[in-house]
């Protein structure tokens, strides 16, 4: 199989089909000693060949039971202008966005395989109603959900509704110093975010988590954020800085990058705001995997995940050893599940 991506990979030509069929039938027919059975046996072999070629497996057997994380980058838009991230620089136009029902359909197809669904962005709470709708559907399907937010758009009404679904909210926080806030976030809403964190702690309890980016710029701030979280009894995690178009610098944790930890991000099924499906938001770092695997508006998610190319990229990711393997989405087991 060629590793070079072909956009029409799944559309095999007639000659390829005939070659494949004859490649199965000719050796098989040579095995038949009782020649009077030649035609019925070739018919049976054709049935077998057709099943292996066209029968679509139930999703439960695709990747086992509850071994996958579905990650939805609901938008590239953001109300912050963080220097650590460049995603906000290229917001999507309305015409490129999929309908919520398309993602819900995808979630419903996959839920038996999922241990978690994660909503990220951009800033997901720009689409607060959609997030609540997905949260409700995830609860119905008994799939835990995480929303990763910058914390600035949180409202009491949202928190009350969100808490009913018993999902997790992760707020991004990189410094406790108001003087650095504008530099880090590009917006002046330190007081708003800090009061939202306190409100969220009160309403969500243990289901509020805080996450920081460990970079050269935040090396002195992360311990203070950790102390703040410890005092409030909030679980805190940090992950190394990655280049998503930002201008920060990594904290030179070379010992981390030399580690031979296997990349677990291959468990992920990622859907972009426009319906494109990838195995990992960062898999474009793998030269042969720069194109999406498919789009849920054009193909069924199961068909996309069943492609040989998906399998091949999954295999490549296992040993890709890129620095992004230290992101939280690479953690093999559910991260915050209570």
């Amino acid at each position, binding site marked *: 199989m060629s590793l070079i991506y072909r956009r029409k990979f799944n559309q095999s030509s007639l000659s390829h089909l005939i070659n494949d069929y004859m490649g199965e039938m000719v050796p098989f027919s040579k095995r038949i000693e009782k020649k009077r059975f030649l035609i019925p046996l070739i018919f*049976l*072999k054709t049935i077998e060949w057709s099943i*292996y070629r066209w029968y679509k497996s139930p999703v439960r057997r695709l*990747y*086992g039971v509850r071994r996958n994380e579905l990650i939805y980058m609901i938008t590239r838009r953001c109300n912050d202008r963080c220097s650590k991230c460049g995603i906000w620089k290229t917001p999507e136009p309305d015409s490129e966005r999929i309908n919520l029902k398309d993602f819900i359909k995808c979630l419903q197809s996959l839920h038996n395989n999922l241990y978690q669904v994660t909503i990220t962005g951009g800033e997901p709470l720009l689409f607060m109603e959609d997030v609540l709708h997905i949260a409700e559907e995830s609860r119905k399907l008994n799939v835990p959900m995480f929303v990763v937010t910058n914390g600035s758009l949180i409202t009491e009404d949202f928190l009350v509704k969100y808490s009913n679904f018993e999902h997790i909210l992760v707020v991004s926080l990189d410094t406790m110093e108001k003087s650095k806030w504008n530099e880090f976030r590009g917006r002046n809403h330190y007081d708003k975010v800090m009061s939202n964190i306190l409100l969220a702690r009160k309403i969500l309890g243990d289901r509020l988590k805080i996450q920081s980016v460990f970079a050269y710029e935040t090396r002195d701030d992360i311990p203070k954020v950790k102390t703040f979280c410890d005092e409030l009894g909030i679980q805190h995690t940090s992950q190394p800085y990655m280049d998503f178009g930002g201008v920060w610098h990594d904290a030179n944790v070379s010992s981390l990058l030399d580690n031979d930890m296997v990349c677990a991000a291959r468990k992920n099924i990622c859907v972009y705001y426009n319906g494109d499906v990838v195995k990992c938001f960062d898999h474009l770092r793998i030269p042969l995997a720069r194109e999406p695997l498919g789009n849920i508006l054009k193909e069924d998610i199961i068909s996309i995940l069943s492609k040989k190319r998906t399998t091949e990229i999954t295999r490549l990711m296992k040993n890709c050893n890129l620095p992004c393997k230290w992101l939280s989405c690479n953690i093999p087991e559910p991260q915050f599940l209570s």
Partner: protein
Amino acid sequence: MSILIIPCLIRTKWDINCLQRLLISVQNQSKQFDKVYVIEDASPFSYSLPFNFIEHIRLSRNGGPARARNIGIDKALEQNAQYLLFTDHDCILDKQWNEQMTLFLSQTDFGAVGGMTYSWGKTLLDYYHDINGTLSGKWLLPDKKELWYMPSLNFGMKAEVAKQFRFDEKFPTAAGEDVDLCLRLRSKYKIGFCVKAKLWHDYGYKNSLSGFKRFVKLFMKYKSSSATLYEGHTVLLWDSSESIYSGNAHVTNI
């Protein structure tokens, strides 16, 4: 010391008859097994077995054949078994099956072994499986010196292999879990083929017409496991192997 592990999920009277028929063939072995574990995987059908040489382990919840075999492996290793042999409830062992399998494992440096599988029935569908090698091992090409994989209905491995490689319980049904195990264990060990270790598998076809639906369902079940297999073993995309049937069973350079 050889221990036989039989996972079983009994759904119908036919399954019970099969199991009893298998256990009679176990009883008639030229070389007796030191232990026989029948792992009852929470069958919906209650039954008892009139054989005092077996240890009947009843699981409280159904976990699939991979889990049932793993439980048998744990028990066998606790007993310090040297050779762990596996078959299914719908098989019938040749009298010399245990003798040949253990002899092969003891006299070669293969970590695992597969035997020769024939269809029990006489329908056209059974004949198809015989020449297709549906449940036979697969020769690794081009040399045919070892097996690519071997279905677990006619399979055995040494204790040192079983300690390192277990069945993956994420396979929910009897499809693909044996192939997965073989492909993993081949990273360290080789799988040999013992043509003299014969058994017969009953596909349950009453006749060629009424059995057709069962025939189709069988391959649909195997196809269902293929995505899981491909996810773990992309090498299958380049599967360079040939299924074993009576016509190539002796083409061995072992």
